[in-house]
């Protein structure tokens, strides 16, 4: 398999703070916010207009390609059916915006350097307990009623997102809202920027498709655009279900707002030439360089092992996906050929003089037509049941790889902080003999600052390591569950098809026997 570098995760917010604005302490601001109000939804409702995320029609999609130069190369090098698995979408679009710490969820508290280890562990356990209760998990989301709005190249599809739940975090039991595709992307972007860097596997949003959407916009009412919209609808539904299944994500106010509020601030397109856009590109380049030089001293073999296993799994899933796609393709071919044969049998029946034979041949044509229908349904089943699941998991694996990368970055940050601390100490030592009292004080202050950062760095690292272990455990369980479900669904559809076939043959037999 090709060596595939996980896309360097972009973390604009954090890098901003550490590289450009050295003075502003990430954690100081956090603490103040917590003290003011821990559950203020205001915090997360930060000016959405500033958020340059999501899509806004074809313009955005073009920009997108420009934006992701690295991935662009990958995209064309692949040139297989699996283009969709490697589109620029793989790169999680992270929100530009304030520190992800400003969320009233448990992770925020963990950012507080004053919380000591014992309290920290207790909080972690609480989180796990929450998970247990959510196992009796009662929320159903459906995405339906795709509706085309606008016209020409500015047209877009709007979907109805309906939620049915008995969970108390929601305002009511059943409600629905209208959302467009870019809203989903915006949601993912916000969630990714908040949680990826602390090691949560945030489910990736469905792929963008320039070809598919263009067909829809242009107004082509043919089978392929209908299929495309259906495929997208289904993917959006699966995306939301996966996201709410994550106990921490479920409590996220952005997610709640997405599901409940009738008006959602529009996610505006990423302009490549915007300030944030350029910054993003610069940071991504820096990240890429950093990644190449980060050589982590792995003290925990578990992480190395898991990374390797996930690499292997990625290869296996891609092979499976390709195999299923080929199956689907042949099924479609079979459907076409069966229909063609049915037609020729019908024509033969029409030209036949012998009445009973003529009737039997016409019946034959009908049977074949019905079988064709079954083939189409089965192709649908193969496709949605397996191909989409496999595709989802390949994309999920990139998110998994992403959190591993984040851990490496966290480690690197910790190491950098230690280096800085050392330097500050050396600088202070020098100043001892220079007799500049005000500078000395400043140096001592800086040492305190960096000691704090080192401690924080270590805590972050331990936190993300713990988090990843838990997330991986959840992922592994979910993957087994998901596949089991799909296999059962597939079997059920197989059984159904066969029973239909039996009915058709049994109906035809007397017709054939009646030929005299």
């Amino acid at each position, binding site marked *: 398999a090709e060596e595939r570098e996980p896309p360097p995760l972009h973390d604009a917010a954090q890098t901003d703070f550490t590289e450009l604005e050295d003075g502003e302490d990430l954690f100081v601001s956090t603490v103040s916010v917590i003290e003011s109000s821990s559950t203020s939804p205001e915090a997360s409702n930060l000016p959405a207009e500033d958020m340059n995320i999501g899509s806004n029609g074809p313009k955005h999609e073009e920009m997108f390609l420009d934006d992701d130069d690295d991935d662009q190369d990958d995209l064309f090098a692949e040139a297989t059916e699996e283009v969709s698995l490697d589109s620029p979408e793989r790169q999680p679009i992270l929100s530009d915006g304030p520190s992800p710490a400003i969320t009233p969820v448990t992770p925020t508290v963990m950012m507080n350097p004053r919380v000591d280890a014992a309290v920290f562990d207790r909080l972690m356990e609480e989180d796990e307990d929450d998970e247990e209760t959510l196992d009796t998990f009662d929320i159903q989301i459906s995405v339906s009623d795709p509706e085309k709005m606008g016209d020409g190249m500015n047209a877009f599809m709007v979907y109805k997102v309906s939620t049915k739940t008995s969970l108390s975090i929601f305002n009511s039991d059943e409600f629905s809202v209208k959302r467009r595709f870019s809203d989903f992307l915006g949601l993912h972007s916000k969630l990714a920027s908040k949680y990826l860097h602390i090691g949560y596997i945030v489910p990736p949003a469905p792929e963008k498709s320039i070809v598919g959407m263009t067909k829809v916009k242009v107004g082509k009412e043919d089978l392929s655009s209908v299929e495309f919209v259906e495929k997208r609808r289904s993917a959006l539904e699966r995306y939301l279900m996966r996201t709410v299944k994550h106990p921490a994500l479920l409590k996220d106010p952005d997610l709640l707002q997405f599901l409940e509020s009738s008006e959602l601030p529009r996610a505006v397109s990423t302009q490549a030439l915007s300030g944030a856009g350029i910054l993003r590109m610069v940071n991504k380049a820096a990240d890429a360089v950093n990644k190449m030089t980060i050589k982590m001293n792995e003290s925990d073999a578990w992480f190395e092992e898991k990374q390797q296993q996930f690499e292997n799994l990625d290869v*296996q899933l891609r092979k*499976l996906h390709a195999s299923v796609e080929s199956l689907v393709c042949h099924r479609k071919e079979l459907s076409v050929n069966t229909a063609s044969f049915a037609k020729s049998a019908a*024509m033969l029946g029409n*030209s036949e003089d012998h009445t009973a034979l003529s009737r039997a041949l016409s019946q034959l044509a009908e049977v074949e037509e019905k079988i064709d229908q079954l083939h189409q349904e089965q192709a649908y089943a193969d496709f949605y049941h397996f191909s989409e699941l496999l595709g989802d998991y390949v994309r999920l694996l990139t998110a998994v790889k992403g959190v591993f990368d984040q851990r490496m970055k966290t480690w690197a940050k910790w190491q950098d902080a230690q280096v800085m601390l050392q330097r500050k100490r050396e600088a202070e030592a020098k100043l001892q003999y220079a007799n500049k009292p005000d500078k000395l004080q400043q140096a001592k202050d800086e040492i305190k600052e960096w000691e704090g950062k080192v401690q924080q760095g270590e805590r972050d690292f331990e936190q993300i390591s713990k988090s990843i272990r838990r997330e991986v455990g959840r992922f592994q369980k979910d993957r*087994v569950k998901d*596949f*089991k479900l799909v296999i059962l669904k597939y079997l059920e559809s197989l*059984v159904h098809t066969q029973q239909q076939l039996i009915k058709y043959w049994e109906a035809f037999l007397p017709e*054939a026997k009646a*030929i005299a």
Partner: protein
Amino acid sequence: MMTELSVTASSIRITDVTQDGDILTFAITSQKLNSSGGVCVFRTYEDFDWLQQNLFSQENVPGLQGVIFPPLPPKVPSPLNTASKSLKQLGFLALGHDWQSYCKALEFYLQQVATHPILSQCKALDSFLTKSESPGKQRGRKGILNRLSQAVEGMRKESHKDVDDFFQKQRHKNTNLAALSKVATEKILDVVLTEQKLALACGHFSTCLHLCVNQDDEAAVAFSKICLKLSDIVEAVKRNFEKVANNNIATLGLGLDLEARYEEAEKEMLFRRTCKLIELETVKKNTEKTKANKRDVMEEIQKATEKEFSLISSVAKQEIERFHSSRVTVLRSFLVGWCEKQLDTAKECAKLYSQYLDTCKNLFSE
């Protein structure tokens, strides 16, 4: 020379086929008419061809040209094992394991010849079926009946207007049916080929599932278990495709192929008659034009030609009626066989899938 066939037509079977380099040898068995003994001979395609030529070139058989000759399947192309070439030349008959379809078609040919009121009395048939030495070495005279497709003027002559309403209608219908049945055969061939492709794709999918098996950790073990289960299911799906394809080949496909080739045979017969008609009309015209001294000769020729034509026409009429009733019977048996086989396969498969569903439901809930 007319003889009676010494074996029963219905007992003729092709029981075996062996391949030696590029040559296929067929074992043909039949039951003796007047005793309980059986006969077994070995023949190659050359021998079949010899038989067909002999049938064409029989002398002193009035109206022979009006006979619808049972169609001999085309020769297997050499080298033998090029699948694409076989498919092109033999079409449907190239499918099936070990030349099964091809053998069935040859067997059918022999049975048709042996049950034909006129052809079964040809001595060559009896020699073919009973003599141990292969007759193919003696090259018989090439029949006067050439293949329709070789006649370039065929196109023009084919559309020549008939003097007889019955035949005019017959020719029209036959042209139609010949074309349509040929198309239907090609279409079902496409279906079968796709079914075979699907079987292969299933096999590939199953292999990929096996590649996912590993013991890395608890989750991987659980995942491996379900991959293996799914692989079993996919193998079952594969076998189903293979069975469905084989059913199509052995019954419907074979039947349509036979029908298509028989319509062609009828076409050739009608063409021969039309040619005779044109000959007759030409002779008539010439007779009218001849000078008095040559007129007697011409009138003799005209009378002879008229007699030939009328004999051909009467044989043809009988042949057409015989053909029409037998083809209905033949098609019926193929259609019924097809339906029964597919029904059995569907039932088997439904049962198997249901079992898998139950097993999986139990397995997955633990």
